[in-house]
Every structure is written in C-alpha cells, then in structure tokens.
C-alpha cells in the first residue's frame, strides 16, 4: 500500500516535485555540462592552473632526463678538453724535454710540433740525444717535409715518443725508461742495475771481453758505427762486465747497453750503434746468424719507416 502522502497521478506528482530552486539548479547543471562540452573550460582552467604552477614542479620525465644527460655529457667533454688543452699548453711551454716528460700524466699524452721537439732535442746532452733519434734521420725527415708532429705518452713505466707525419703515420718511434728519464737532462745516460734485468736486451747479452775482442778485429769504420764515442765509455767509472743489444731498431740505430761493475754496484751505460755495424759484431759473436734481423729479434718501428 502506497503512503497516503504519495501523489496518485502524474500531474500531482509533477506539481509536488516542481520547485523554482530545483529548476534553476537543473538548468544550471545542464548549462555547465553543455558549456563544458562546447567551450572545454574545465580543460582550460586546469591547464592554466598547471601552467601557473609550472615553475614549482619537479624537472622529471624523459625530456628532463635527456637534458641532464646532455649536461653530464657537456661537463665530461669540457673536462676532457680542458685536461687536453692544459697538457698541450704545458707541453708547448716546456723548455726542456725532462720538463715536458715530467708533465705527462698516465692517461694524457702530449702532441707538440716537430719544430718544438727539435728545439728541446738540441737542449739535451748529445749522449742522451743519440739514444733517442739519430740527428741525421731527423734532418732527413725534415728535409723531406714528411715530419710534422711529435706525440709523447706514458706506456707502462716508459715514455713513448712518436715522430709523426701529417697523416699520423709513425716515421720513427722510441721509448725512454723511467730510469733513463731520471738521467735525462744533465747526467750521463746511466741506469742502475744489470742488463739481464732489462727485457729489451734479453737474449742479446755478451761478455764484455768477447765483445771488445770482436770489435777490435773490425775495421775502424765499423768500430765507429758501433761505438761512436768510446772515450765516454773509457772515462766512465768501473769495469765493463757485459754488453747487450736492444731488440728495437730505430731509424737504423740500435741501443747498446754496457754493464759496468762500479763501487756503487752494477750500472748500465747506454749508447746507440748503427744497425749495420752492430750486425757485424753480432755475426762474429753468434756465427749461426745468417742475416739481419735475427729470428729472435723483435724489431719495432713506425709504419712509414719501411
């Protein structure tokens, strides 16, 4: 049974349900809905609110992440370039080879011009200079206009020196050990220790008496090719014990180490010999050798030096 207060027909029900406030409210709701569909004011309002509060929100999301990566990349590159430029500037401003080499870091090499290297080269004692590159060879590549730059870098415990042409082909290459580095500058090229401790002489070490006996039998021209300045050796403190030939050929020069027995212990005097002359000695020391370079010889040189 419906309650007595319920309208009994549609007309009564409509009359009871009608009210001005209700009608206005309904119209307002419809107006709001229709105007939103038509003018999208909710989207506009929300959008404007968000735009107004934009600066207070976090820089998150992929676009900002990319921006941060770009920033990291830029900073990393700047650091790399700065390090490089600093190294280059220091190398350019170095007034001596030891100063330049001392400024080299383990991860950063230095490139200098051929002209600058020549200047530094002329400032080191000739005995040391000869252990690096032959002046004649340097004159030759200068005259050929093939020599452009010099690159130096730390390699393990040594310093590699590359004479380069414009296309970065190595015209010649040599290394300097830390011990040689210590002596680079003013003293004789002397390294403390024994020859058999130096890997570059391994397998090519001969007793000094045999070496000098063989050398004595050769023509003066060959003797000069092997030891250009024997007087330095003669003046050195101690007695020669053994002589070793390096496994590297550099612009037709081979490094020769003479191990001396001195009151301070074993020391190695370094000098350079002409490859052809050293070969004559080696042939006499080891008759089984048939022609240069030997099977065991490990020869390193630049791509353009063939």
């Amino acid at each position, binding site marked *: 049974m419906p309650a007595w207060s319920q309208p009994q027909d549609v007309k009564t*029900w409509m009359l009871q349900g009608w009210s001005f406030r209700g009608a206005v409210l309904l119209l307002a709701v419809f107006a709001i809905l229709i105007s939103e569909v038509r003018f*999208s004011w909710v989207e506009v309002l929300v959008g404007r609110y968000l735009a107004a509060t*934009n600066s207070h929100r976090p820089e998150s999301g992929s676009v900002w992440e990319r921006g941060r990566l770009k920033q990291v990349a830029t900073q990393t590159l700047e650091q790399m370039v700065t390090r490089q430029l600093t190294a280059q500037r220091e190398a350019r401003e170095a007034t001596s080879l030891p100063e330049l080499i001392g400024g080299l870091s383990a991860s950063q090499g230095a490139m200098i011009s051929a002209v600058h290297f020549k200047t530094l080269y002329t400032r080191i004692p000739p005995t040391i200079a000869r252990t690096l590159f032959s002046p004649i060879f340097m004159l030759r590549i200068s005259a050929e206009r093939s020599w452009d730059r010099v690159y130096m870098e730390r390699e393990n415990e040594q310093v590699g020196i590359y004479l380069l042409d414009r296309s970065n082909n190595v015209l010649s290459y040599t290394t300097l050990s830390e011990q040689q580095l210590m002596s680079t500058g003013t003293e004789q090229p002397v390294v403390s220790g024994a020859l058999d401790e130096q890997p570059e002489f391994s397998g090519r070490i001969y007793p000094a008496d045999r070496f000098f006996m063989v050398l004595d039998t050769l023509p003066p021209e060959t003797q000069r090719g092997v030891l250009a300045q024997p007087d330095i050796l003669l003046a050195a403190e101690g007695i020669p014990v053994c002589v070793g030939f390096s496994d590297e050929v550099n612009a037709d020069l081979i490094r020769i180490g003479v191990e001396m027995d001195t009151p301070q212990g074993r020391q190695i005097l370094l000098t350079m010999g002409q490859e052809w002359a050293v070969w004559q000695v080696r042939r006499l020391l080891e008759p089984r050798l048939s022609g240069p370079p030997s099977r065991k010889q490990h020869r390193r040189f630049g791509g353009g030096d063939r």
Partner: protein
Amino acid sequence: MIVSLRLFRVAGALVYLIATIVALAAVGLFCLFLVAVKDLPRVPEPIGRINDTPATEIFSADGRRILTIGGRETVALDDVSYVFIQAILATEDHRFWEHRGLNKLRTVKALWITLFEPGKIQGASTITQQLAKNLFFSFERSYLRKFRELLVALQIEARFSKREILETYINQIPFGVGAYGIGEAARTFFGKSAGALTLTEASLLAGLPKSPTRYNPFRYPERARARQQVVLQRMVTAGMISHDAAMEAGAASVGLRAQGRSLRVDSYFLDAVMKTLEETYSPEVVYHGGLRVYTTLDVQMQQHAEAALQQGITGLKALMGVTNGSEDTLAEDDNGLQGALVAVAVNTGAVKALVGGRDFFQTPYNRALKNNRQPGSGFKPFLYYGVLESLYKTPADVMVDEPVSIPVAGKPPWKPRNFKRTYEGPMVVKKAFMESVNTVAAQLVAAVGPDAVIHAARRCGITSPLRPVYSVALGTFGVSPLEMASAYAGFASGGVRHPPFWIRRVEDVGGRVLEEHIITGERVLDESITYQLVDMMAGVIDEGTGNVVRKRGFTLPAAGKTGTTNDFNDAWFTGFTPNLSTSVWVGFDRGQGMRDKNGVGITGGRGAAPIWAQFMRQATDGEPPRDFRVPADIYFKKVNPETGASVGFWNRNPISVALRKK
C-alpha cells in the same frame, strides 16, 4: 497507481542516482587531480628546446657524413609538406585544431570499450597527449599515468599555440630506422626535404609512427603499403582529399630512396664504431654530447663489400637449393645463410669495409667481430710460419701425405684426414700448403708443437682464446673475420703488424680534437720467412684451393688461404694484395652444414673465395699491379713438386719456391 507514474518515479530515482554518480566522479576526479598534480613534471619553455641536443656525427674516410645521432633537425611547420600535415592529423588526431588537449567524445568511447568490452583496448590520445607522453612518461600502462599525461597535455594546450604543439610533435616522433622527426624521416626514406613530400610519400610516412618497426617500409613493404591505405582512407573520411586522389596516391609507386638501404649497409661498421665510442667516452657523451667522429670507412668499398656478400650468398643459396620461401619458414632464431666480410688496409690497419651479416636490421649480431667461428685451414699460415721459423724447413722440403696417427697423452691418438679422403704420397711443403693437405699439417704441428703455432698467431694479432693442442693448427678455435683480415695484413706487409682501427679522429662540437689514431707498425715476423709464406699463399690463389679467384677474373698479385670446417659449417677465404687484406666467412649462425643440391659440401674455395674475388676486383679496380716486395736474401727455384729436386726446362709442372740464401 498508474504505470506512467511508476515510470516517472523510476526516472526520478535514476536522475538522483546519476547525479550522485556524477558528483562522486567529480569528487573522485578532484581527488585524483590532487594526487596526480603532486609530482607532475615541469614543462620546459619554450617547448621546442627538446630538440636542442647537439648531434654526434660520424664521417667516412673521405669526409662524407654517414650517420647523425641525436641533435634532431627541427623543421618549421611552414617548411613541411601540407599533405603530410593533413595525413598525420587525419591519422593521429583529426580534431586537433578543435580540442583543448582532450577529445572528449573519443575518450568516452574508448573508456566504454576498455571497460565494457573485455580484451579490447581503445586508444584516444590526442597529438598533445602523445607529445606529453613522449616528453615525460614511460610506456608503463596505468590509469594514473594516463591521467597525468592528460594533465600535462592540458597545460601544454593552455600554454602553447596549436602550431607550436604540432611543430614540436612532428619534429620528435619516431619513424623507425633511427629517423626521428619528419625532416630526418623524409631524407632517410625518400632522400628529399620534408617540404617536398608528395601525397603518396606523406601518407606512407604518416602511417609509420603507430609502429615504426612493424611498418618499416624497407623490411615490410606490404605492411607499410597497407597502412598507407588506412591513412589515405582516413584523409578521405576527414574530407581532406577526394576519393580519387586517395586511389591515385595509393596506386602510385612509393619510390623509397634507392640509397636508403645502402646508406644503412654500413650499420655493422657503425655498430663497431658506436661500441668503441661508448667504451671510450660513455654513452652520455656519445648520444648527448655531440661528437665529430672521423672513421676509416671507404663508402664505395663498403658498398662493394655489401653487394659482393649479398650476391655471393644469393648464389650459394641457389646452389644449395634454398629458396626465399623456404627461408621464410625458418625458426625465429635462425637467420638463414649468413656471411661477413672485413677489408683492412695493409700499411695502416685501417678498416676500410666491414659487413657483419646480410641485413643489420634483421640480425644486428656482428659476425665480423665475433670470434666464435673456426677458421679451419685458414689458420695453417701460422703453422707454416712457425715451421719455417723454428724447424728451419723450406718450401722445397719433402713431406709425405699419408694417413697419420699422432699420439696424444691420456687421449686417443689424433688422426686428422684430408678433405679429399685421398693421399698423394711425397710432396714438397709448398704443394702441401697450396692443396691444404691436413696430414702434412698434422705432421708439422706434431714436430713444431702447438705453442709455436699459437706464438705466430699471437704475434700477428690473433687475440681469441687458443689452447695448445695439435688441432689448433687446423683452425679448431674460433676467431673473427676482423682478426683474420688483420693478421693476414701482417703477412702482406712483410711481417709488420698494424693493429686494426676504425676511428681516425674524434672532435667535440667545437672542433677541438679529443683523440687521434697514431698509425703504428711493429715488426712481428721475419721479413724473409714471411715472404716465403706469402709466396706459398700466392700459390693457393694461382694454382691451389683458391684458384677460383683467378677464374673469377681477379688478376692482381695476391695471396690467400681457404678454410673449411667439419661438416662444412664454415667456409672462409682470407687473402690480400700488397695494399688490402680481406677476410670472408659464410655459414649458418646455428652451424648447419652447407651442401649443394647434390649433397656436395661447400668449401672455402667454393663458398667464400668467389665473394672475395668479386669484392677485391671492384675494390682494386684501376689499381696498377704491384708485386709483393722480395727481400734481398730471397731467391727462386723451380723444383719437382714430389721430390723437391731442382728441375730443368724439360720437366713438366715444376713448382717455383722462394728460398732464403744461407
């Protein structure tokens, strides 16, 4: 009570219910808004700054730009073809000019389908919403993410003009094949500017952003054309073009850029370059820092390499009776017959061409660099070098080709057999090498020891793992084509090794040099012994297992060695002229053997050497003949191939050997 009254009552209740639901929804939305707005991302201003990352550019050896990474090219809206604008709007958001970031009707429809039609998901994102998603959000699917994306879209709409939004959108959408933005896409696919796109081209491009990989027109032209038809139909529906224009554009040929594919053939090369760069400079610097990378790639040589490999593999497939149809039915992880080619400059080590497979986009696995394929007899030069060096043998010394059984401690004896399964008796070392006689190689490795072989290989630059077992001499340990090409380059240069490299110089955007490659050479082998080996390797090409090279018309002085592995899993040919060393490998990734229709195995001479010959013929076209440099202590002698004895002019088929003066 009358029925209509009841209906009105129900209607009244329904109105209250709806009003309540709407009110609750409004409250819910407001709460969601409060939650979502909390850590909504900041929108950059101007919005176009998203494209200002400097590009990393990669150049070939002759200075041509071969790849640009990042640094998206921004094309002004006025400079983009109008038909493309219409096509992209018709496809992605045909009410773009009308809405304020949200297409309400489409959203309600999509919501209805998503909620009430299980298994179906309908997208309704406007271009602004897509832009918001691309700029700030991951591809994670969640209602909150979607709502936040909508809020950002509303902000973008409130802050920027429609033209700004559209311009930003078309300059950052991915079209596939590494092309982002319409400018790059137009150049990549059609080799033209975005302003010159025709309706046919524009409709094809407008269909790609939906799924750039699935609709890649280079790889799936049919799918791309079908998608193009959808785009054209939507343009007709939106009243942008007539039905006839759509029909005409749909029927017209697409004319994809001819060099489009060949532009990308260097992808295996670029893959190697990118990996090196990432290792040296970190991915951030490579992709966001803007580098100028000058490589060693010779574009023309690279194209020759790609063409030679493609044609060679097609020929091999025909020989094997493998049709394209049968390849389509291969298992998903089976890439079919593959190949690799690497060419290295002898006097520098510069990698001039590198192809790591048939199609980088099909399989980016770079076979040119992976060291998992056995070289077979291609490894014998290291054995013979060790033998000449350590055993003082000469190419004229006599060995006996006969069944061998070499005792191995704690294991059954090693009994390698010849490829031909026949034995020819006595023969000189050079002949054994030229004909790749395994029994002689086995005797030699037993005499010299596997360590000597490994020592020679290591000096030449083989870095892959090798174990000191006899079979190492027959190439039973995996190496890469790059290693082989580089190691053989050491033979070509008379024993001087130049480490391979592909990056000459790296600069930053300002042109400041970050890195330069210094071309170093190290003498690792004796020049005279190396020459003896090169002379034997030249015999392989002139009269031995690789003589197909001469039959294919390659006439320059050259030397090389074939390689075939058990069950014909791998076919190799590595060879060189005095200037260029090239290694070619063919085989299946999963190691199925290669046999022709008659069941005869495909050897290195049959499978890889023809590819080598074709490539080298084109790569050295116009180059004057240049002999390998003969060391002063080398002399030549004609000997009997069986006895090694000196022969006179009256003897038939003598063999010329290079000997060293005592």
